[in-house]
């Protein structure tokens, strides 16, 4: 649908090695605005390395990385942030004992007045936090409550709302549903959809194909640092996705071998008592 546009973030044949270990090999990725791009893979598949490159934490050894069609080479997460690429890590970077609004503006506080009396503009920050969270559909009775009293899902959503408010165009979410229950995951997935509808390009890293399929527009499955699957939603069913996640071709081989060994399905032979 938006394929004729230039991708906001585009990786082309990117590779990365740590010593002898090939973490990524020939990985290409195109992330568009108004889309949720899901990156799936088992532990050690290269998901983390991939987002670390995109978010500016790591460099890459080969291939190219373009933002809005312009080649870039980030040296720090700040470089990525300056181009509107924000990452919400699993630990969310919030301080549990501090009020929600203080967390929202931490590190980017709004101040008023001149130096000796330069002070926080508390009213504006509280109001902004409240409206920004409401925009994401989070309605807190009191932005003064410590952020630690919110549920995991709500905290995740505050972190997302914060990234959006501070000018993110590309939002990288690192396993946002990994530590959450079913209900809380649902809440976070709805905010991912809301972020996409707000025009952002969302990169959603997960190892849960069910969550990915609920919100994703494009799916990239990594395996052993290579792309196992790269498909748009229209060309895919949940079963395909689950199949590829579970190991794809490797799983087929395994089934084949098991078939030969002794019939499908584990049927315990309860003979001779």
């Amino acid at each position: 649908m938006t394929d004729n546009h230039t991708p906001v973030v585009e990786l082309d044949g990117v590779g990365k090695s740590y010593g002898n270990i090939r973490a990524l090999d020939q990985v290409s990725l195109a992330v568009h605005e108004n889309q949720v791009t899901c990156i799936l893979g088992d532990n050690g598949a290269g998901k983390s390395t991939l987002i670390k490159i995109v978010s500016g934490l790591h460099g890459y050894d080969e291939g190219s990385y373009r933002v809005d069609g312009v080649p870039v080479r980030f040296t720090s997460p700040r470089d990525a942030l300056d181009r509107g690429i924000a990452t919400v890590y699993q630990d969310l970077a919030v301080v549990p004992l501090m009020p929600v609004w203080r967390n929202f503006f931490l590190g980017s506080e709004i101040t008023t007045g001149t130096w000796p009396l330069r002070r926080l503009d508390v009213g504006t920050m509280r109001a902004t936090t409240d409206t920004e969270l409401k925009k994401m559909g989070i309605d807190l009775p009191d932005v003064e409550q410590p952020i630690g009293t919110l549920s995991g899902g709500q905290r995740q959503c505050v972190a997302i709302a914060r990234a959006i408010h501070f000018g993110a165009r590309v939002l990288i979410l690192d396993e946002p549903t990994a530590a959450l229950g079913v209900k809380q995951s649902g809440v976070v997935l709805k905010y991912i959809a809301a972020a996409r509808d707000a025009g952002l390009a969302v990169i959603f890293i997960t190892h849960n194909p069910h969550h990915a399929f609920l919100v994703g527009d494009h799916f990239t499955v990594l395996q052993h640092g290579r792309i196992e699957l790269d498909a748009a939603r229209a060309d895919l069913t949940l079963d395909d996705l689950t199949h590829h996640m579970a190991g794809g071709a490797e799983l087929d081989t395994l089934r084949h071998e098991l078939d030969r060994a002794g019939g499908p399905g584990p049927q315990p032979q309860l003979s001779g008592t």
Partner: protein
Amino acid sequence: MTQVHPAPAPPTPRREHTQVSRKSWSKRFFGRPEVGSLMGAVAIFVMFYAIADPFRTPGAQSTVLYASSTIGIVTVGVCLLMIGGEFDLSAGVGVTTSALAASMFAFQLSLNVWVGVVFALLVSLGIGLFNGFVLTRTKLPSFLVTLATFLMLQGLNLAMTKLVTGNVATNSISDMDGFDSAKAIFASSVQIGSVSVKITVFWWLLFVAVATWVLLRTKVGNWIFAVGGKADSARAVGVPVNRTKIGLFMTVGFTAWFAGMHKLFAFNTVQSGEGVGQELIFIAAAVVGGCLLTGGYGSAIGAAIGAFIFGMTGQGIVFANWNPDWYMFFVGITLLVATLLNLWVRNRAARR
């Protein structure tokens, strides 16, 4: 499948919160860090008021406030540092170091005492800088770093004083240039009606007010809570964690300097072995006032109430004609009871 895609307005997750639509006044009050210490202060005040006749006079109250202020001034710095997640065990002897530095520097070089005062400020800020720098560079726990500083300063105080003066105390500086103006700033009294109140009381209240304002209403205050609450998260959103911590250690240095100057100009001479053990009183006052040992939570007003409790206990024991040897025992009890009270109040406030 497709019904998810148009994703209408996201949900309103207010189900968990509707019953507490607004925090009630009492919940806000009991959620404050200083509540436990305030209740304790009132209880101790009522007790001494009831049992000790002399405690009821305005003059006695002025003495209590003075005693509280000498503890409270350094407690302001210690409390800010504890909210920022660190300890300073060197603050007690640091007070003596500062007084010794000012006194000996001015006396030996026959300078105006104000030169000594400025020199002492640089020494105290330098000690804070050293503590902060070693801590942020080595990532060692502050307990260890400042324990080392504490021991080094304790030795330096004695050794340097003996080396320079040949004695364990400094020479009196009361007849030197600038002494009177310095005494007016650091150790004079203000007459209010029939009561004479020591100037340190006003400095103390000013420092508490400034610290409270900084904590709650400035960027730096936000950072202090953040580096104490979760330093990694703070760093991730761009808070200068190391600079904040070093600044906090230097703030402790500043308050230790101020207390040292008061000591110097109140007594004209300084005993080099003083100050050992005081660091724990400062920390205890901050903890009684609601500071969490783990950082990220506390208030300067609470720490002031903590200092007031200890000042009041120390003087109250005298006014009640008890043996002053019991002072430390009461400090210990107060610390334990106040900490438990704080915990209880906080849990109740959180549960409601």
